[in-house]
């Protein structure tokens, strides 16, 4: 690592001392950033009766799962919120991966009239802040199409996002055209080319896309909050907010809910960390 070691320097002990100091500072910072998560998890094991003057102990005094039980008993739909989230995020992710890779392939490797124009349209659509579309979208979905409290309303607007099509197009452009050409000569049809050649060659980028989409959809709050009125159809994020406003003093159950909403993502993160981190840098760093 040329940035830190000088050319030809041989004093090993200096390097060790430096690394220890750096590690100490980094660990301190990491403790600060991780603290809210730690606090959320340990507080969720507190008893739900500790209302009002919640205890701010940093080390859990008692370990009980009562708060989790309280959370699931609080509303008859508590469990359903999680299932709703899973369903919506799952369907959105699946649709995004399929449709975005098909469209990305068309933009990257096929010539057709209007190709440039449609891609330009896509880029423009990507730049528009969501505030501009939120009101008409709400009017369209709720007032015109009367889709309030349906899965269609939750899923349809993000069925395929511009960003994912763009991402797929950028990656597919780098695939060798010769492979696709030879498949064509062998008589392979276009859908089969995507299924048998393009998709297997881009497993990583598709996994990254799936994970970022799922994460985004799981954590999204704004749109489900707008279109879900009945508790039955709410996603976990919206349900969570419900919960806090109704019962601000029940600290531990609130944290239990927060932990439940975050836990699936943490499990995913620890098992697929590589893809998560790749998802952050994709499109950001060139070369």
């Amino acid at each position, binding site marked *: 690592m040329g940035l830190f070691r000088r050319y030809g320097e041989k004093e090993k002990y200096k390097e060790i001392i*430096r690394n220890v100091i*750096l590690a100490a500072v*980094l660990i301190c*910072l990491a403790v600060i950033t991780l603290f809210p998560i730690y606090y959320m998890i340990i507080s969720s094991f507190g008893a739900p009766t500790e209302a009002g003057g919640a205890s701010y102990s940093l080390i859990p005094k008692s370990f009980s799962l009562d708060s989790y039980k309280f959370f699931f008993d609080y509303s008859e739909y508590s469990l359903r919120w999680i299932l709703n989230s899973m369903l919506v995020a799952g369907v959105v992710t699946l649709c995004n991966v399929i449709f975005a890779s098909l469209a990305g392939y068309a933009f990257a490797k096929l010539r057709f009239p209007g190709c440039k124009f449609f891609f330009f349209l896509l880029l423009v*659509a990507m730049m528009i802040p969501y505030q501009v579309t939120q009101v008409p979208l709400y009017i369209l979905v709720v007032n015109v199409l009367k889709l309030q409290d349906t899965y269609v309303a939750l899923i349809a607007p993000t069925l395929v996002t511009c960003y994912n099509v763009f991402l797929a197009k950028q990656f597919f452009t780098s695939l060798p055209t010769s492979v696709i050409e030879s498949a064509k000569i062998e008589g392979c049809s276009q859908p089969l080319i995507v299924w048998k050649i393009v998709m297997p060659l881009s497993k990583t980028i598709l996994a990254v896309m799936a994970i970022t989409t799922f994460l985004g959809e799981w954590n999204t709050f704004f749109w489900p909050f707008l279109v879900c009125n009945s508790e039955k159809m709410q996603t976990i994020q919206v349900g969570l907010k419900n919960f806090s406003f109704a019962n601000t003093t029940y600290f531990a159950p609130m944290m239990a809910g927060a932990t439940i909403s*975050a836990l699936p993502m943490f499990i995913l993160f620890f098992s697929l960390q590589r893809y998560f981190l790749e998802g952050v*840098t994709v499109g950001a760093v060139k070369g």
Partner: protein
Amino acid sequence: MAAFFYKDRGNNIMDNTRKKKMKKETFWAYAFILIPLCTFMVFTIYPVVSSIITSFQDYKPLGSEWVGFANYISTFKSSLFYKALKNTAVYTVITVPIAILMSFIVSVMILPFRKGIQSFFKGAFYLPAIASGVAMSFVWKWIYDPLPSGLLNSVVRFFGIENQNWLGSSKTAMASLIIMAVFAGLGQNIIIYIAALLGIDPTYYEAADIDGSTFLQKVRYVVWPLVKPTTIFLAITSVINGFQSFQTAYLMTGGGPDNATTMAGLLIFNRAFKYFEYGEACAQALLLAVIIAIFAVFQFKLSANDVEY
């Protein structure tokens, strides 16, 4: 003659099959982009057009009234609009440089370690970003508890600072949101910076060593200019995100106290879904979009001039 005839026919067949193939390709291309295109048309392009139309109307479910520029005029007349813009600007202008500088320093610090330790720190800093914003804002709300027993209050008392009403006082509310935003966004920037830092050719460092530069000089004159494209990318995306921020303010303070934390995103949300003035909300949203666009172009031009290698 016969040979010529056959050649010609052969050419014709080739042309026909090529045409057929092209047609087939075109058909499949349209088939592939059909669903995304429909989605954009219905859920992006139509709302944008509708937003522009609605901004000139007084929206009513049964037939809206055309009111010309009235929505824009009342927006420009309302002092809350300017306050929200100022809040948004303050929030963004403070959060973005701090977050970028901090993540740059941390990334440089992570760099000398082995790959395994690097990914441990990357994971540790990134974890808050994958927890849901709703859950995190609950936790931060309790960290900022105004009672003396509150967590942050206990910490600052240790340093001899008196009890603060963090989110409830107009002096500290914005600062509290900024601290939270800086820590929440750190992980993402760090990961992007590390990727950029690892891409730097080590020969640059060797050349700097031969010239006898110190560590800090290397950071300043080698690393910083080389990761400039990354910095620009982070700056532009963070500014755009900052201008659009809604969720934190909505969940943490609701815009209060005394609108000290009402930012553009929240202002538009309240106009639309609290007061149901869709027309004015659309006008404000379009103004915000224009401001973001101007800012992005300006920032891009400015930083493009600055790159000097």
